């Protein structure tokens, strides 16, 4: 080695030592020889590249974090050729990421292949075979008696099935992208950092405003905070209960701020609507009758063992046709009142026609329970028809909230509890005698 090269080596070593001592020295990549010693001594943190154009770029589909922090894209050639200059951690990560990518690719191929097979089996057009058709086909071919929906067989695109992984958190030299990398949960703590800076900016805005001026806001009444699990999937990081409650407390501070209107979108991004609002789309479809009236058919109206279906037609004259008879089908006034109740609440008493057919029930007029029994299982039929009427009215535009609050839209799933051995009836125990 000639003297100039020796001098070069001396210079580089001193620069390396300087960098190790903590000074921010930027050394261009081509300054070094192609040996691995220089990089490994300082743990790979010295070989930082000032010009990012020289640094190869890599990213994976499933990572928002990398997108946010500026991902670098890596091609296959880079993986093989640059192996010498990568830190061990990076190397391990790249190997894992490559395997994962390959795995996902094969899964994707299998899924696409399987979907075509399925379309063929079901005799449907491959092009228009949506995910919904896939689900239906699976349910048909693999009928499952399991109660838990998550335990039943599914066929989904691999992105939905396999958990998302975080992209590379550090670049080729091992230097992390995210400024909060060393907190071990960068996304979470960065989010907290953002929230606090927002609070500070809102405080500056509200410098002159007194606390009493903040009005109770109802804009968040129909929504609730996302759960811990949702937050975990969003941030791709595991969160403890304590961390979650801290995060919530911080957000509550923002919501309680008088100037929170500036950050409404930010708040709404972390809120999800409550079940009531998200169920408004579950109303039944309205069909147009040949005579121009609108009708809603409510099938599967159930109460105990009664099965009824109800047809609500509007505009109508308040006609009732239950199993061919009028409201007189119900002998008891309480049952008639029950059937009319949703109509009274929605103020559509004389304005709709109701046609209902009910079958079943343990007792029928043909074989009554006992001659003195006032009911003969009529109430179950009345409740089934009432549920059908309420749902029909809801679909036709009645006030759904009112009906829901009155409880007419809820199916009564109660069944007769069986008698158990050692008891007189389902719950009643025999009288205990001391001796």
């Amino acid at each position, binding site marked *: 080695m000639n003297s100039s090269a020796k001098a070069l080596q001396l210079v580089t070593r001193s620069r390396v030592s300087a960098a190790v001592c903590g000074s921010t020295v930027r050394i261009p990549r081509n300054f070094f020889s192609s040996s691995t010693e220089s990089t490994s001594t300082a743990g790979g943190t010295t070989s930082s590249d000032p010009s990012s154009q020289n640094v190869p770029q890599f990213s994976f589909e499933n990572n928002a974090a990398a997108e946010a922090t500026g991902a670098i894209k890596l091609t296959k050639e880079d993986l093989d050729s640059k192996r010498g200059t990568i830190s061990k951690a990076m190397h391990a990560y790249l190997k894992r990421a490559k395997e994962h990518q390959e795995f996902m690719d094969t899964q994707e191929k299998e899924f696409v292949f399987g979907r075509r097979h399925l379309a063929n089996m079901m005799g449907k057009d491959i092009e228009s075979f949506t995910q919904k058709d896939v689900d239906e086909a699976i349910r048909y071919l693999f009928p499952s008696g399991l109660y838990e929906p998550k335990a039943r067989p599914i066929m989904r695109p691999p992105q939905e099935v396999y958990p998302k992984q975080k992209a590379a958190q550090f670049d080729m030299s091992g230097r992390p992208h995210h400024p909060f990398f060393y907190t071990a949960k960068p996304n979470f703590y960065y989010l907290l950092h953002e929230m606090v800076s927002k609070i500070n900016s809102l405080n500056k805005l509200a410098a002159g405003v007194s606390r009493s001026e903040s009005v109770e806001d109802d804009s968040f009444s129909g929504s609730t905070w996302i759960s811990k699990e949702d937050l975990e999937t969003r941030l791709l990081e595991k969160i403890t209960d304590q961390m979650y409650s801290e995060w919530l407390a911080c957000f509550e501070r923002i919501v309680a701020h008088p100037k929170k209107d500036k950050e409404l979108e930010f708040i709404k991004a972390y809120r999800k609507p409550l079940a009531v609002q998200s169920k408004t789309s579950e109303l039944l479809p309205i069909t147009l009758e040949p005579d121009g009236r609108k009708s809603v058919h409510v099938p599967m109206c159930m109460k105990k063992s009664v099965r009824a279906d109800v047809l609500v037609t509007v505009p109508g004259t308040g006609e009732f046709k239950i199993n061919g008879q009028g409201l007189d089908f119900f002998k*008891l*006034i*309480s049952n008639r009142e029950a059937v009319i109740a949703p109509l009274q609440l929605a103020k559509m008493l004389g304005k709709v026609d109701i046609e209902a057919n009910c079958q079943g029930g343990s007792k029928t007029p043909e074989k009554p329970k006992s001659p003195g029994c*006032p*009911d003969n299982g009529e109430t179950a039929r009345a409740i089934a028809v009432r549920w059908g009427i309420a749902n029909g009215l809801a679909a036709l535009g009645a006030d759904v909230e009112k009906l829901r609050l009155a409880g007419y839209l809820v199916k009564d799933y109660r069944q007769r509890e069986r008698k158990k051995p050692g008891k007189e009836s389902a719950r009643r125990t025999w009288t205990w005698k001391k001796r």
Partner: protein
Amino acid sequence: MRMGKKELARSIMDKTFMTIKKVQLAKYYNTQDPEERAKIILNPLELLHKAVENSKPFLETTPIKRGGHTYQVPVPIRENKQQALAIKWLIEAGKEKDDDMRFFVKFGYEIIDAANGTGKVIKKKVELHKRCEANRAYAHYRWS
């Protein structure tokens, strides 16, 4: 309602309301003065609500033991219990011994009386409140 016989309970209430309506209508047609007529409540349901509201006690005495002695300490009653007590007393008053009258008739009269602020149930409530007032010296035992 007893033994799950809702229809029986319903029919009794129907007859009670019929009695109340008859009595109130009789009162209405007996006076010609429009002012007095306006004061008479003809809706039995409204009368029932008013009766229950008037009969609700808001304090009762409960035995609390302190230093060997058992004191009757006045204590407030929750909303639910207030209503339950009022209804229970009205029914009990209706069941009281009167051989000629049916239950629903007597019950109807008790409701009308309670709505007007008279009758056995109101008296019972007032006596309970008097007892609470008499024992107000021990009220602090509730927290001692």
